[in-house]
């Protein structure tokens, strides 16, 4: 068996490991160490896969997901699709500490974060905007659509399932004998 304490994290994000270890050395809890370690990657935008300025969605917006779990109480705080708040794991920790919920998502999670004192700020950067404009220039390739028209392997959206008529197409309405003026 390996000696305790132990810090283990995915990918070679060394500064995050160091920060978590440092937190333990200063007497912090395991929960604090996870929060501080992951927050380093949010600030340093580790590999462009953590934190602001990465992975823009189809509309060019960066949103964040994070969770934190306490193995003693089995308590969890998590945020999904968090908008305009940089410290996602910090918000997840507040969900754990100040609510009995587990997961808050989207714009409402942002409102919760603001109520907890987190600043609202743009999560886009020149880099994420360039990523997005290059993607648009490549006919939106790759994307995560399938079974739609136009062909998502060739064109940008908006996409529709093949069965749905275009909005401006004459829509066939069933005559409803009970529906009349």
């Amino acid at each position, binding site marked *: *068996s*390996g*000696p*305790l*304490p*132990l*810090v*283990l*994290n*995915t*990918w*070679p*994000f*060394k500064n*995050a*490991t*160091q920060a*978590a*270890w440092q937190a*333990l050395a200063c007497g912090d*809890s*395991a*929960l604090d*160490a*996870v929060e501080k*370690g*992951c927050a380093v*990657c*949010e600030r340093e935008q580790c590999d462009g*896969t*953590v*934190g602001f300025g990465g*992975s823009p*969605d*189809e*509309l060019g917006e*960066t*949103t*964040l*997901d*994070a*969770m*934190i*779990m*306490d*193995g003693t109480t089995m308590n*969890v705080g*998590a*945020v*999904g699709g968090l908008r305009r708040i940089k410290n*996602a*794991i910090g918000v*997840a920790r507040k969900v754990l500490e100040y609510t009995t919920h*587990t*997961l808050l998502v*989207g714009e409402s999670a942002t409102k919760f974060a603001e109520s907890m004192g987190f600043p609202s700020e743009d999560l886009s950067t020149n880099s994420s905007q360039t*990523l997005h404009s290059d*993607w648009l220039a490549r006919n939106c390739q*790759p994307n995560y*659509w399938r079974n739609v028209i136009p062909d998502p392997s060739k064109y940008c959206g908006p996409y529709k399932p093949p069965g749905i008529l275009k909005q401006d197409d004459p829509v066939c309405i069933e005559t409803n004998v009970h529906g009349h003026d």
Partner: protein
Amino acid sequence: TIGMVVIHKTGRIAAGTSTNGLKFKIPGRVGDSPVPGAGAYADDTAGAAAATGDGDILMRFLPSYQAVEYMRRGEDPGTACQKVISRIQKYFPKFFGAVICANVTGSYGAACNKLPTFPQFSFMVYNSLRTHPVEEKVNC
């Protein structure tokens, strides 16, 4: 995505994740990271695990929960991680994913699904045998 597991010297365990998700995702898409049992899972009585990769696939198999349950049944961390990868592989042979695992004694391991572009997986370890964070690699 970063997934982290911390075991305090008192044996208390915590786990967490943070990510900005998938490039060019459909707005509203959330992957495995913030889902307890998928992105990460911790239980002082069994251990903890965290996963990374294609979250749309990973989250369907709750990899972190499953790895902890394997360790609860006595599997060592490396085997627990590998068994989770194998489970997913049966359905999605070409999925991109990796899992880190640690049990209550501080033993740890990792496993990943081998792809031509992903032959090895790097993770970080720091414990009292080391004077600094050490990068370890596991062959997928």
